[in-house]
């Protein structure tokens, strides 16, 4: 306990607070721009942090990390242009809310949900990090395979009004996921000799194309997009969700935070699995599942609390085992070691002061972005009043430049435009785009782990059912699939 107070003492110096503020603002900006990921933000900070004392360096990295995950929700809600895959599920309900003039309320809910998820995972990190880190080790290839299937099952929920079209969209995503050099045999799959495709179809250009660029088309093309003729939503003054809405979402917030924290612990699982699984679970447990995807605050709450809970979760294996939970925390390890802090149990004993300073700075960064977010949202919602044809070109510019900045490749820019056109027509013809992106993210995880399991078990398919953890996950998958069907059947019976 003493150590927590010492750590708090380190944090309430003017320099530390200034670093925290700057890190939070930078993180929010990085998160909200398409193409700038939290990995890139943290990597860009690394050279700056060399010359800083370790405490300040870690505060900066932590603040940038948590606030960049939150920042993605703002543009996802107001413009339907999620900056990273973590906020796709937020856009599903956030944008319809913004179009109904309830953008402020949606951002308010996203902010509070992010705060809730973030705080939850930091508290988990402080209290039970060492025992929880064993979860990261218990997951073998078999468990990852079933987890990826669990993630894919959520497509049913995301594309509830067009299930078959959702499956087709996911199948195309899976086909795209198999493009590239095969890691196991070195075979070239569907690369057509294009060197840019050897490492697979890059995710972010596809994501930015299908969501942001297609949105730029949506905004510019209609006849009523101009300044004179555009009809934009009447803003409704509310910037905080109703207390009754908050209370209604409490269970979802809690459930999503648990899912986010656990998924965060697993190296290589990814933030978007957590937000999609939480979204699907929220919908499954809701009394009004049909409202999801049309502007349901609970959907925003589920996705945002889950993706921010991942931040604390990823730090659990990073700090206790030295195994980074994702690309951002891998950069974190570099930032820790450069200051002579070696990830592992010693971080909680020998260097406990610095470690707790980092953890507490995450806590403060969460609170800080929540305050900034709630204060800024009344100004930010004005964006939804700007006529589409003014907004569209600017979104396109951000998408093009952001995509180029990812790996300095003109090829990716053509890709983003191509997927933009595809996304525009997919939406018109009622083919949901989110399943394609989910499949593109989960495809490689599924394939690689399935083939690893097969190599380890020498092609014994029962390996998925003979391990207790993997069997439990299998049962959860079956439940997630069967529950909506059973629910439908029960309702039909009740009506008759």
């Amino acid at each position: 306990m003493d150590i927590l107070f010492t750590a708090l003492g380190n944090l309430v110096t003017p320099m530390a607070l200034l670093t925290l503020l700057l890190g939070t603002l930078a993180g929010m900006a990085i998160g909200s721009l398409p193409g700038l990921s939290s990995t890139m933000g943290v990597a860009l900070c690394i050279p700056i942090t060399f010359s800083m004392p370790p405490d300040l360096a870690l505060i900066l990295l932590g603040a940038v990390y948590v606030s960049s995950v939150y920042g993605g929700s703002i543009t996802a809600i107001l413009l339907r242009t999620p900056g990273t895959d973590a906020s796709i599920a937020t856009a599903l309900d956030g944008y319809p809310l913004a179009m109904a003039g309830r953008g402020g309320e949606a951002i308010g809910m996203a902010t509070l949900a992010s705060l809730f998820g973030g705080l939850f995972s930091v508290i988990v990190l402080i209290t039970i990090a060492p025992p929880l880190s064993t979860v990261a080790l218990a997951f073998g290839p078999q468990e990852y395979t079933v987890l990826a299937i669990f993630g894919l099952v959520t497509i049913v929920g995301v594309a509830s009004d067009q299930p078959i079209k959702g499956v087709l969209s996911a199948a195309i995503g899976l086909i795209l996921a198999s493009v590239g050099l095969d890691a196991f045999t070195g075979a070239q799959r569907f690369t057509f000799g294009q060197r840019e495709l050897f490492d697979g179809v890059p995710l972010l250009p596809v994501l930015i194309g299908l969501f942001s660029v297609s949105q730029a088309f949506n905004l510019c093309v209609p006849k009523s997009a101009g300044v004179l003729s555009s009809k934009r939503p009447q803003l409704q003054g509310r910037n905080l969700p109703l207390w009754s809405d908050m209370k209604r979402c409490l269970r979802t917030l809690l459930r999503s935070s648990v899912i986010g924290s656990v998924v965060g612990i697993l190296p290589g699982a990814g933030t978007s699995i957590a937000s999609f699984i939480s979204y699907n679970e929220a919908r499954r447990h809701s009394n009004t599942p049909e409202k999801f995807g049309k502007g349901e605050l609970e959907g925003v709450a589920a996705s945002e609390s889950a993706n921010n809970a991942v931040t604390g979760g990823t730090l659990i294996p990073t700090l206790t085992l030295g195994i980074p939970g994702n690309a951002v925390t891998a950069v974190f390890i570099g930032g820790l070691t450069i200051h002579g802090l070696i990830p592992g149990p010693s971080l909680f004993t020998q260097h406990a002061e610095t470690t707790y300073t980092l953890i507490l700075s995450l806590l403060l960064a969460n609170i800080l972005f929540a305050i900034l977010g709630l204060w800024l949202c009344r100004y930010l919602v004005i964006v939804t009043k700007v006529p589409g044809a003014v907004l569209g070109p600017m979104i396109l510019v951000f998408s093009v430049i952001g995509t180029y900045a990812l790996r300095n490749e003109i090829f990716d820019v053509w890709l983003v435009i191509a997927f933009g056109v595809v996304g525009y027509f997919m939406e018109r013809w009622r083919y949901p785009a989110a399943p394609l992106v989910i499949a593109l993210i989960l495809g490689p995880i599924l394939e690689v782990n399935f083939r690893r399991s097969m190599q380890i078990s020498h092609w014994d398919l029962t390996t998925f059912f003979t391990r207790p953890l993997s069997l439990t996950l299998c049962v959860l998958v079956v439940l997630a699939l069967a529950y909506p069907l059973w629910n439908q059947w029960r309702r039909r019976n009740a009506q008759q």
Partner: protein
Amino acid sequence: MKANIKFKQKLILSAMTAILVGGLSTLAVAKDFPNKPIQLIVAFGAGGSTDTMARIFAKYAEEELGQRVVVVNRPGAGGELGWVHLANAAPDGYTLGLINSPVVEVYPFTREGSVGYSLDDIRPLANIITDPGVLAVAANSPYQTLESFVTAVQENPRSVVVSHEGIGGDDHLAALNFAKEADIDLNFVSYSGNAEATAALLGGHITAFQGNMSEVVNQINEGKVRGLAVWSNERIDAISQVPTGKEQGYDVLAAASRGFAVPAGVSQPVYDKLLSVTREVVENPEFLAEMAQLNMPVNPIYGQDYVDFIHESHDRLKALWDQEPWIEQ
């Protein structure tokens, strides 16, 4: 006739001017090089270990050069994309690249026909890091030595699973080399990241991990992972308890090296200038201290020696490939 003479005079005059200006400008280039920011191409993504080293190097090189050194990530095709960009860049010294051996020298023959660069397009400048390969098992594993590991594989080849980071990479080549030397068949599983592979090793999902020293040094020193062998000539200070392969009778040498290279056409004065700057940075104790803290073993090889190093490694691996290709064609 007169006009013709005048024309000839003009021609000679302009030719002389051209030579003069050309000569002056090469002199000028060497003298005030660099006078604009320099690009440093990293063939891997932001945040990885190659990228981290590049960004630290850039910070010190900026002090020496008096110009900004901009790290440009061009990941793709397992590094090939970045090296294609390096090979095709203007040879004016304003584009440098990091090359990762042995990967950079194997693509020209493993990807023969489709590869976008040749080793002749790239002129190696200086090696910075040499990260030796390590074969490791979890601390609770029954295998105490390389010998007991080999015996176990001979008795029951199916019971052992070894991870590496992608087919054709340095870890895969090291493990193949070892398997050949020990005359055993290993069951390989590919892991794309060292984090996932370490977690799988600690969780008991795989038997052994073939990676680089810097990736497991912390876990080895904490006693969670046991190094069976390090594939270097001598023991490594950071993990002095781990014996080399040679000590145990397996003559295997493997490492991942990272160094700088420039496009082949760079003029000698500019090459020398860049070489001396690199030398200054690598001899800077602050740079060395940062590398040591990141567990990146610095092993400088400069100029022609580095060129020879890359080409020798190329010839050795090419011979191995011709004998028995590790990727089916």
